[in-house]
């Protein structure tokens, strides 16, 4: 069929089954927006900032497992999108971003709103394309979706010059992809898997170390089965919360800088780490030479470059976590859970010694209480997104996540401003769930304009602001490591959050007591509108335990005396 490039973009998105595009128009992408106007196969959500469009597409992808799609114009539209690309890249989120570009004839002339988008985005995309011939456009979009969602997922940018979207040509959407240089290996080597299974049977203190790859690969039922079969204890990374399920007796908790005592001690004492889709990030390992120092390591990862990057691995297995764990289950039929009984008992003692807990108060609202309370009130019914800071860590520590894709946060890049737009995307993707963004008084302002988007499209996202009048996490480091010199972290000068939400067409609640919080959350859910619940929490609360950066995991600050 004859059509112009802009139509081809839309037809390709329709062929990929895209239901929602988040974006923001401008000169170089206007031809495509003209075609968006003429179609009604997918909806377009106009965010109020390109960064938010990309985070929303990202949140949509994380919540649904589908490829998120965002669209931006050239120049500043694209540069605004870069943080979104980098955020998705660091967490391996499948996403396609389509950006307008100046016409081919102007590329290289410093034309109006010209910027080298493929150059800038190269280090923060899985792959990117500049379309230089209309005939390539359908194939490129097909490849973009394939690359974004296969192997180790990631964002792909397609930069389309304006004259390409205006030009007419024949549209044939390819039915399959053939990239001779891209063949991710997903199966996992059988011999290696057998050896790993033998190692598990021979171990005395095995530990499942579950990472974000387990979520991406939708492996959770198999991982839970593996844990149950051998009664093998498990720890989760920040990205893997929900994989094991909060009620799972084999789950010790989250490990790492703000991991709980039992998890970090388990990692320090295990004799066999079974790493499933985790990548030994420095926030997880602490001091590398002390990390799992008594253990052999089985590392299952779809990305060979992750294996052996930071720690030496004894049983490398390149493959998709689901495929590998399924095969491990076959090999482990005769595993004897009794072998690890004393290991489990040791870990139980550790957990009893220092459980994941906090000292509640009757005078002030503790931020941890708010998280636990949300868990009690909505629990399984909610998807929780978050921003970056103390609130994020408390949410990860205290929320009873019981399925993957229930917890959405920027783990790798640590992007403040991610939570609200990601919540908008998640809610659009999974409308039947209550979506709550747990945020801070710093982070929420970094995409606060999205109140307008959520109000306009009636996307009822609940933002719970744990308001400590500080850039709390930075303030905490200043308390511990900078002698309480609170350089530029005091946020006492505040907007009127309630009025701000109302001014943009949402609801606002100011909360200073526990009763008010319960009432606000109930009302927010009933009213079904975008809202801010501004909760005044204990100002100087710290996230504990804490492993100081670069320290060994077993050296945790468990308590902090003023």
């Amino acid at each position, binding site marked *: 069929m004859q059509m112009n490039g802009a139509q081809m973009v839309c037809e390709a998105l329709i062929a990929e089954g895209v239901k929602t595009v988040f974006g923001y128009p401008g000169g170089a992408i206007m031809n495509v927006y003209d075609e968006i106007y003429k179609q009604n196969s997918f909806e377009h959500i106009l965010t109020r900032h390109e960064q938010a469009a990309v985070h929303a597409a990202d949140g949509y992808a994380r919540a649904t497992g589908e490829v998120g799609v965002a669209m931006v114009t050239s120049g500043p539209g694209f540069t605004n999108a870069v943080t979104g690309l980098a955020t998705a890249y660091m967490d391996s989120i499948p996403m396609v971003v389509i950006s307008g570009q100046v016409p081919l004839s102007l590329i290289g002339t410093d034309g109006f709103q010209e910027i080298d988008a493929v*150059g800038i985005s*190269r*280090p923060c995309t899985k792959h990117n394309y*500049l379309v*230089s011939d209309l005939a390539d456009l359908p194939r490129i979009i097909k490849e973009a979706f394939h*690359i974004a969602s296969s192997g180790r997922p990631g964002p792909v940018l397609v930069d389309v010059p304006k004259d390409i979207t205006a030009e007419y040509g024949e549209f044939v959407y390819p039915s399959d992809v053939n990239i*001779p*240089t891209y063949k991710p290996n997903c199966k996992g080597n059988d011999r290696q898997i057998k050896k790993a299974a033998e190692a598990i049977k021979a171990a005395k203190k095995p530990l499942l170390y579950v990472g974000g790859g387990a979520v991406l690969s939708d492996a959770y039922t198999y991982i839970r089965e593996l844990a149950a079969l051998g009664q093998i204890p498990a720890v989760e990374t920040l990205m893997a919360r929900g994989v094991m399920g909060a009620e799972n007796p084999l789950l010790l908790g989250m490990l790492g800088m703000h991991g709980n005592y039992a998890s970090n001690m388990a990692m320090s004492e295990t004799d066999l780490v079974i790493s499933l889709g985790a990548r030994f990030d420095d926030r997880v390992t602490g001091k590398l030479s002390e990390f799992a120092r008594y253990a052999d390591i089985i590392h299952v990862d779809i990305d060979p470059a992750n294996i052996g990057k930071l720690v030496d691995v004894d049983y490398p297995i390149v493959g998709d976590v689901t495929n590998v764990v399924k095969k491990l289950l076959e090999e482990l039929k005769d595993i004897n859970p009794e072998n690890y009984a004393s290991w489990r008992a040791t870990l139980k003692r550790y957990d009893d010694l220092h459980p994941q807990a906090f000292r509640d108060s009757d005078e002030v609202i503790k931020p941890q209480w708010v998280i636990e309370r949300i868990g009690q009130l909505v629990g399984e019914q909610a998807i929780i997104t978050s921003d970056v800071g103390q609130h994020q860590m408390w949410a990860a520590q205290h929320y009873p996540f019981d399925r993957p894709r229930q917890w959405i946060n920027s783990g790798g890049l640590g992007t403040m401003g991610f939570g609200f737009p990601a919540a908008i995307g998640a809610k659009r993707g999974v409308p039947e769930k209550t979506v709550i963004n747990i945020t801070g008084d710093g982070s929420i302002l970094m995409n606060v304009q999205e109140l307008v988007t959520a109000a306009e499209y009636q996307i009822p996202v609940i933002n719970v602001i744990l308001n400590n009048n500080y850039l709390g996490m930075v303030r905490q480091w200043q308390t511990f490591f900078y002698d309480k010199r609170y350089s530029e972290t005091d946020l006492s000068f505040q907007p009127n959050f309630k009025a701000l939400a109302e001014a943009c067409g949402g609801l606002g609640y100011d909360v200073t007591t526990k009763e008010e919080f319960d009432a606000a959350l109930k009302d927010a859910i009933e009213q079904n509108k975008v809202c801010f619940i501004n909760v005044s929490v204990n100002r100087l609360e710290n996230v504990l335990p804490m492993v100081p950066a670069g320290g060994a995991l077993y050296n945790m600050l468990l308590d902090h005396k003023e």
Partner: protein
Amino acid sequence: MEIVRRVISVIVMNESSVLARVSGLFAGRGYNIDSLTVAPIPGSELSHITIVTYGNQKVIEQITKQLNKLIPTLKVIEHEEMVEKEMVLVKFPIESNLSDIQALSSAYNGGIVNVGIDMVITMVADEPVRIRHYIEAAQRYNPIEIVRGGVVAIER
């Protein structure tokens, strides 16, 4: 860990930004590039990139894995057993002793390739170490300009 020198051959799709992807990878991840050459492979849509780099074993392993990860990469060959050659062009002032320069260059399997009014140009293609020696030896004839071609390598 011991720092080693490695020659890595990368076979890539011959597309517009592929060199930027490769060099950007090295810059972004802090890997060394000692030399880098690239040219299309005749009769194909591929290019052959030869990179000489230094690093410990872990770094070299990461380099090959990261190169493999690039979408347009077909193959990465990292071998100790490579036949390596490099080419150098040297411009000398004509007042130097021409026959000495000729003799020196032919000792390194090269010779004079161009003579102008006031300069001669020699070309030598040999193993990288020998190229280094040639350049050292050439110093006494006051070379005006030295252009090295970078290492190319082929698997044995």
